[in-house]
């Protein structure tokens, strides 16, 4: 297996990872930045035309272009060995990446789904997934589209859908108006967030934005044709060619957990300079709490400095950080899922879609592991990334252990002997 090494290795080239890489490089370290996507930018920046990005985003990406950071894209970290080495699947070939001084985890988040009848029909997609599809050119012009779910992510996606010519008939936020307003009011500290929200809302002015409204079911034979929603009183059925649904984000802490980093629920625990419980391992961005891109960048900068050994600089930056925990908690509180959502799925509604396990088969069990052993829920290719947060929501179950590989990968990548001389992977790093 070919092996590359750098002083600081960063996993995840989203806002947090880019900021970390730039800061570590600025402090004189050699840096490798790894992302499984084909382009840097993470969930929020990579799909878009550079020119259309906000100034701050453009500036970070330009700094990355001009830096000596070695960027490795199309590269999935599939395993992390205790001996300071990552195992990477690079286009089907194994690559070892060693960090000599520090590792920064900036792995972002996953969308959270709440199963309801019809959620597995073709034409029902994640809110973030829709964003990605749109950016990669999906044509929605003239389609009847409904957006139903929860969290601030609904706004930018609604704006994008509108701009792309979709007939967006409703944006339904499950959280009640009072909670959304209180959350908005608490944003006074960061006017840029207000501006963002206002800009997004302006992007889909002709579509009603209803709070306290949630999806009950999606129906259709071969694909979704209509969706029924409720505000707790009446029900309303809308024709629908595309239903975008998502109920917030869950920190992507798999790699951190594989490395043994302490977590609080799904969040990776970090200290004031983003250090995790494991020596030399830092974490930044949404993997340590859902708080949006702006905070992800700041955390990335702090982690990058700390990883490069500039603790004083990291602490100085840390003081600029808004009370993060309060924001994370505020966001979680404002958009926490209402009780009624637990009653959405019917007995036959699939909860684990990799292994086709319906809710009724899961009710008898007492834990994630027990349900998994006896129903296969969470045993499929996604290894519970989708169903575990749902099971946690429905039953209050805990989080299962993480084992290699982090993503399905071929045997020859996962278990190529270290000492084997393999030809270098097909991509060269920049």
């Amino acid at each position, binding site marked *: 297996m070919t092996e590359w090494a750098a002083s600081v290795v960063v996993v995840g080239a989203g806002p947090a990872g880019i900021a970390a890489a730039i800061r570590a490089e600025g402090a004189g370290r050699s840096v490798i930045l790894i992302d499984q996507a084909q382009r840097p930018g993470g969930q929020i920046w990579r799909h878009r035309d550079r020119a259309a990005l906000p100034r701050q985003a453009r500036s970070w990406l330009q700094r990355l272009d001009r830096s000596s950071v070695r960027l490795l894209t199309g590269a999935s970290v599939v395993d992390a060995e205790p001996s300071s080495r990552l195992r990477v699947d690079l286009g089907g070939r194994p690559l070892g990446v060693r960090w000599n001084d520090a590792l920064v985890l900036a792995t972002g988040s996953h969308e959270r789904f709440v199963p309801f009848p019809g959620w597995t029909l073709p034409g029902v997609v994640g809110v973030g997934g829709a964003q990605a599809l749109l950016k990669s050119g999906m044509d929605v012009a003239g389609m009847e589209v409904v957006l139903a779910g929860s969290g601030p992510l609904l706004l930018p996606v609604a704006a994008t859908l509108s701009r792309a010519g979709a007939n967006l008939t409703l944006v339904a936020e499950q959280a009640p108006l009072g909670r959304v307003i209180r959350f908005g009011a608490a944003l006074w500290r960061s006017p840029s967030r207000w501006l963002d929200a206002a800009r997004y809302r302006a992007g889909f002015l002709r579509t009603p934005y209803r709070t306290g409204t949630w999806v009950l079911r999606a129906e259709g034979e071969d694909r979704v044709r209509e969706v029924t929603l409720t505000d707790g009183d009446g029900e309303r059925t809308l024709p629908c060619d595309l239903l975008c649904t998502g109920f917030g984000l869950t920190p992507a802490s798999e790699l951190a957990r594989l490395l043994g980093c302490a977590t609080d629920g799904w969040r990776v625990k970090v200290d004031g300079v983003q250090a995790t419980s494991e020596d030399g391992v830092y974490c930044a961005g949404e993997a340590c709490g859902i708080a949006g891109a702006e905070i992800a960048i700041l955390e990335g900068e702090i982690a990058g400095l700390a990883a490069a050994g500039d603790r004083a600089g990291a602490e100085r930056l840390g003081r600029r950080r808004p009370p993060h925990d309060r924001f994370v908690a505020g966001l979680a509180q404002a958009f926490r899922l209402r009780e009624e959502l637990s009653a959405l799925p019917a007995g036959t509604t699939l909860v684990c879609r990799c292994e086709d396990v319906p809710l009724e088969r899961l009710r008898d069990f007492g*834990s994630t592991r027990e349900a998994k*052993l006896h129903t296969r829920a969470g045993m499929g*290719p996604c290894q519970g990334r989708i169903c575990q947060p749902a099971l946690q929501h429905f039953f209050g179950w805990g989080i299962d252990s993480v084992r290699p*590989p982090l993503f*399905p990968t071929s*045997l020859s990548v996962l278990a190529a002997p270290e000492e084997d001389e393999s030809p270098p992977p097909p991509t060269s790093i920049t």
Partner: protein
Amino acid sequence: MDRSPDVVIVGAGIVGAAAAHVLTAEGLAVDVVDRGAPASGVTGAGMGHIVVMDDSPAQLQLTAYSRRLLDELAPELSASCELSRCGTLWIASGEAELEAVEAKQGAYAEAGIASEVLDGDDVARLEPELRRPLFGALRVPGDTVVYPPGLARWFLDRAVERGARLHLGTEIDSLGPREVRAGTTTISAGAVVNAAGPWSGRLSPGLPVTPRKGHLLITGRYSGFCRHQLVELGYLASAHDLSQDSVAFNLQPRPTGQIIIGSSRQAAGWDGAIDRSVLQKMVARAVEFVPGLAGLDVVRTWTGFRPATPDKLPLIGPWPDEDGPWILSGHEGLGIATALGTAQILADLMLERRPELDPAPFRAARA
């Protein structure tokens, strides 16, 4: 506790579950205690190969007997037991091993187990993914594969139907011949069975059961990639040698189309972490036999602790002497295959009947 059961079993793995099934069928009142969920110990980590194995005459007898008992239950098993009649192919790695194939067939025939010697062409026809040249194999058509947690749960469900009580999430701190203790709670019983698998030595200090770590790996779905459980003929030698870490080629097709790749043996204490160097050796060995595996996607890897004894035979009976609590443990890599046979022997001994097999080689107090 409102009633004191005839027997309290510690451990709801395949072994304790099979014992509960057999003992309740005999009309005994049984309680089963486990600190976790059913099959949450090594039973949830094993491969589920119901195989006849001939490392020793006693092992051959026990595996043959147990396989027959499970076959008799087969019509009743639920779909969740995933019983599959795939048979086993013991693969010879060279001309030199063909003699061993013949010898194995002889031993199996004596135990009443049907098997067939195949030449290289036969093997290639049956399992085209195997690397050529192929020299031959022994096919044991009556071996099967189950899903161990499914079978353990099926046993427990039957026992519960007959009145057994489950105490799940209850950790036993200590046990005596007639009671088990969990914190301030004591369950008294006519007899106590320690079926705590690899952990049985913690409850019966001095019991010669040690953890023998194994790694497994499972792929995505590749229906029809292989049809039999494929095992290298040298597997027994690898399983036999307790002194060294070893890997052997052992491949299992699951009804889902997935393939489980094994196996390794290590004396590594209680460290359950994936050992990458062992994983690499194990995969290298598997790829030597089936090159096409290298390109298949893996979805998960894991480890488990086999409950090993020095002579590779399970412990059945009171320990350390005739007045001690009963032990049903030490099944090493064959606990799924032999749970039913060992449970039946236990029941016969408890009820002072003569077991169908000579119980002497398995006497717990031998150790």
